[in-house]
């Protein structure tokens, strides 16, 4: 049938065209198991019953207070910090000193890794009340002066702008995105608890970026320039899960993953310890492998 | 005889065309499948013209279709003996059926010009009552506001909900923000494309109060069907008060203005 075969391709094209449309390539998403859903729903609509929820509250136990300290040392080569692209308000920004990418600060002599955040995920007791003295979050020369700001929930934050240009400070996940005119400031009271540090940025000067973490208990420490950190007054006698975080870490959710078998450091960048009363546990030098820090 | 039946069958099939055709047009008005209610002053002229042409074409339609049927019935090969009549044509007939339609058509052409001129050419000399700005996919309306001039700070902005005074000449300035649209008021026998870059005047006078559809009649993109508006004709005082209310709403400076949103 040469006649019909001759037009086969056209036939295919035509029919295919007829039953086709514009649709983006999408991978198939998992769908619900209807039966299971119904049973679960029954559980939800009936009166509460049975064992506690997933995030079980840490049970109160033990007395006294301990502490945790250590020092992060970067094993790899940090390289030279990259200069930032300053394309706005150049008459002010970067005038005092040239602006560099500060997301990985390693002390040249001691190799200490700064800005590592260590905090307790759950605890039952708190020694000190929430301080009323505000923590200062200032900006000058178009960069934030506090790379990582720690505050307790309810503690006032004094957001300042010591620059001669206006900035806005946009704290991710909060209601705070306010314009701070030159030389002025405002106060923000840390509202909700943050599970992980969140970025604070300035939309006017996109290169400006710092991090904030608000915790109820305030068991947070940020490693200093030489990489050392200390969390005092931790509740003793109860298992404490510590989260270690760094802005550039490759671990999931920013968790910093170290090879520390004895601490059972897990892929989320966490380890668990139970402190004795009046014990200041020293983790010593913690080597941060180059692989743990991303670009 | 079977063969003859074939011819009869086909002839009747073709007879069904004029019969059912006329029937359809005769019945549908009773089921409201007909020209929508006309509330404009000029609409009557258009409608009567429509009916005139309908009757005219209707007659031609019935006659020609019936002739067709009749010839099929009568000159079925199985119904006639011998050869077909040998005719090359007829000069007289040709002349006749050229002249008569020609005359009719020319008459028609002249007869309708006035109606056309009324709707599209004899523009009332007045300032625009409202500016209608078509946009994908809604009708943005701009009233001149208190100072009576468009494009000033006190213009009143409304969406889709056009209000106009009844029994008055209304002049609309029609514009488009993006693509072609067409401002179609079925109940006022008004249709005018909105062309980007052009300001096109549209005028009419409503005879009755009431609410009617504004339809977009020119393909304007994927949301063409969405472009529904509503025109409300009301008495001058009601119109004024509506304007005032809208204006107050537009100047709202305090939350309570929220209340009447859901109410509308």
């Amino acid at each position, binding site marked *: 049938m040469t006649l019909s075969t001759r037009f086969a391709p056209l036939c295919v094209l035509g029919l295919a*065209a007829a039953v086709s449309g514009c649709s983006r390539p999408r991978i198939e998403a998992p769908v619900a198991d209807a039966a299971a859903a119904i049973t679960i729903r029954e559980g939800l609509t009936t009166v509460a019953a049975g064992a506690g929820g997933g995030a079980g509250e840490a049970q109160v136990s033990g007395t006294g207070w301990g502490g945790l300290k250590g020092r992060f040392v970067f094993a790899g080569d940090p390289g030279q910090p990259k200069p930032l692209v300053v394309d706005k308000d150049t008459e002010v920004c970067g005038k005092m000193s040239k602006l560099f990418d500060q997301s990985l600060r390693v002390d040249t002599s001691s190799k200490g890794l700064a800005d590592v955040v260590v905090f307790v995920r759950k605890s039952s007791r708190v020694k000190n009340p929430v301080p009323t003295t505000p923590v200062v979050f200032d900006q000058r020369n178009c960069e934030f002066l506090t790379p990582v700001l720690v505050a307790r929930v309810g503690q006032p934050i004094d957001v300042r702008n010591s620059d001669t240009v206006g900035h806005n400070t946009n704290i991710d996940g909060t209601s705070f995105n306010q314009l701070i005119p030159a030389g002025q400031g405002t106060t923000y009271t840390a509202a909700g608890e943050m599970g992980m540090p969140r970025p604070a940025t300035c939309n006017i000067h996109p290169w400006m970026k710092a991090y904030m973490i608000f915790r109820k208990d305030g068991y947070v420490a940020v490693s200093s320039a030489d990489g050392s950190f200390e969390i005092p007054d931790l509740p003793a006698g109860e298992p404490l899960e510590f989260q270690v975080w760094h802005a550039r870490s490759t671990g999931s959710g920013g968790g910093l993953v170290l090879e520390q078998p004895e601490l059972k450091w897990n892929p989320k960048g966490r380890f668990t310890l139970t402190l004795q009363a009046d014990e200041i546990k020293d983790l010593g030098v913690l080597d941060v492998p180059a692989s743990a820090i991303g670009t | 005889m079977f063969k003859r039946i074939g011819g009869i069958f086909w002839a009747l099939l073709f007879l069904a065309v004029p019969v059912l055709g006329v029937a359809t047009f005769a019945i549908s008005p009773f089921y409201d499948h007909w020209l929508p209610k006309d509330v404009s002053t000029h609409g009557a002229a258009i409608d009567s013209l429509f009916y005139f042409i309908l009757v005219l074409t209707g007659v031609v339609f019935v006659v020609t279709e019936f002739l067709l049927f009749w010839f099929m019935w009568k000159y079925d090969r199985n119904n006639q003996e011998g050869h077909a009549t040998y005719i090359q044509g007829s000069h007289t007939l040709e002349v006749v059926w050229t002249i008569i339609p020609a005359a009719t058509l020319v008459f028609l052409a002249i007869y309708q010009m006035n109606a056309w001129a009324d709707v599209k050419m004899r523009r009332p000399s007045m300032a625009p009552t409202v500016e209608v700005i078509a946009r994908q996919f809604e009708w943005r309306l701009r009233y001149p506001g208190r100072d009576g001039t468009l494009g000033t700070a006190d213009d009143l902005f409304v969406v889709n909900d056009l209000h106009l005074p009844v029994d008055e000449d209304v002049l609309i300035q029609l514009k488009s923000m993006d693509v072609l649209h067409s401002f179609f008021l079925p109940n006022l026998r008004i249709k005018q494309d909105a062309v980007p870059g052009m300001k096109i005047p549209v005028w009419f006078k409503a005879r009755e109060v009431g609410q009617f559809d504004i339809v977009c009649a020119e393909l304007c993109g994927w949301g063409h069907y969405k472009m529904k508006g509503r025109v409300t004709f009301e008495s001058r005082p009601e119109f004024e008060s509506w304007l005032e209310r809208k204006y107050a709403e537009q100047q709202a400076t305090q939350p309570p203005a929220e209340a009447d949103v859901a109410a509308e």
Partner: protein
Amino acid sequence: MTPPTTAVTPAVDHGHAAPHAHGHAQGGLSHFLSTYVFSKDHKVIGLQFLFSTLLWFLVGGLLALAVRWQVAWPWSDVPVLGKLFAQEGGQMSPEFYTMLFTMHASVMIFLVIIPILAGAFGNFLIPLMIGADDMAFPTLNMLSYWFMWPAFICFGASFFVEGGAASGGWTSYPTLSTNPASSPASSMGQTLWLLGLTFVGVSSMLGSVNYMTTIILMRAPGMTMFRLPMTIWGMFITAILQAFALPVLTAAGFMQLSDRMLGTGFFSPEGNVINNAIAGAGGGQPLLWQHLFWFYSHPAVYIMILPAMGMVSDILTVFARKPLFGYRPMVYSIAGIAGLGFIVWGHHMFMSGMNPALGITFMVSTMMIALPSAVKTFNWLGTLWGGRIQFTTAMLFALSFVSMFIIGGLSGIFMAATPVDIFIHDTYFIVAHFHYVLFAGTAMGVFAGIYFWFPKMFGRTMNEFWGKVHFFLTFIFLNGTFFTMHILGAVGFPRRLADAYHYETFHHLQPMNAFMTWCAIGMVATQVIFAANFIYSMFWGPRAGRNPWNANTLEWIAPSPPGHGNFDFQPVVHRGPYEYSVPGVEKDHLMQTDPPNQAAAAAAAAAH
């Protein structure tokens, strides 16, 4: 009933370039390619056109069904297509709907009707009916077909690009079509659409040049212009129309392309922002496109009907066994249509914002163009009068063409009357009008042509019984679908709306639309019968002789199917094409080639 067939001549069996017979047997691939694929034989090219266009006819029909589905049951789960929108619960998206009707129109007009008339029938019939052995420019002829393929590919592929195929309506009015951001398919789809259009244009242009030359220069001895069958006259005038109108469209197409791709601003005004995207330099005028587009597309309307009129005239005479009533008036009216066809384009733009005074001018010219059409109709009726009508399938389709063309023609007068047009412009009234002209008219004419010339194309006749079933159902369903559209139009129901029922004015029209959709489904389903009949008869139908219908025109003296070079002897023409039932002549028709002595004898007989 099938008319008696004359004895099968050997020429039938051994016709070499017979499109279907024995081709694959000998010669291998190169032979196959040269004979069937890249053939320069006008018959093969004609059939290539026929098959391609019929397949696109199917595509267009399916598109139409999808459109009708949405119109009748908006946002409901679409059968088959629904799978594309599984995420949206099977309901088609509005831009998909706009794409559907745009491509339905584009495919039907540019890939079906125009090429099937000029391309398929023109190619196949012109040389045969004027007694030539082939076209004047065979290579050009071959190119005219192969230039359709880029068009096929552009149109076909555009369904698969991001945003889908063109969805600016088949008229693709700016700025919807010029600003890529204005609608999803306005990006790649529209560009492909324009390219496809250009290729169709090139193809038509090559064809028309060829037809004009062939008809003027290659007529057989004795074949004067006024001995040409109406079919040829139709083709001839069509060719002229195309040759003069097409360049304008092509130019306009390129202008739109450059608006889209080079950022010129022929059609978009200053600072025209759509979907937050500025397109082009601006300073243009959207109406310019409409003028250019309709300057071609109105004559195109006649390009889409004149050949069909010609074919119908011939078929009517054959099966009425009677000379065509008023041959010359028929010719003059075709010419008149062609002439006036160039000065009526403005009647598409009465509502466009064009100066209303101009509207009056176009209204008058438009009224005038109704005249020749009327004359033709009356002449067809005259032809039937006193005839001896055989109700073959071909004849039935031809008759329905007349019947339906009356409706299509008369409904046109409503649109021509500018004040009435204010109300029915862009409503279903116009949709009804052009479907009566193009489907109920041209398509029926095409079917008539296929049933009539099928024996000449394949040497076999199509099955009459199924042919009549096909005709009957098509006739019923098409009226069910299209006649009701007039009523919708009278209500003001706008075309191209994905869902009009949320308007108070129209929400009661859904049942009627549902009825129309069922009819449409029936109509498309009916074509399956045709397809089946076609394929079957092509290979296993009863063999036809040279002149199965006892017709007069030249193609019927050639073998069926004609071999390479068409005629096994040089035909000499002695008379016009419509010498049926000549008084005193034994057989009821005198072929154009029959020697005159018979006629003389006839005259003598008449004298007694």
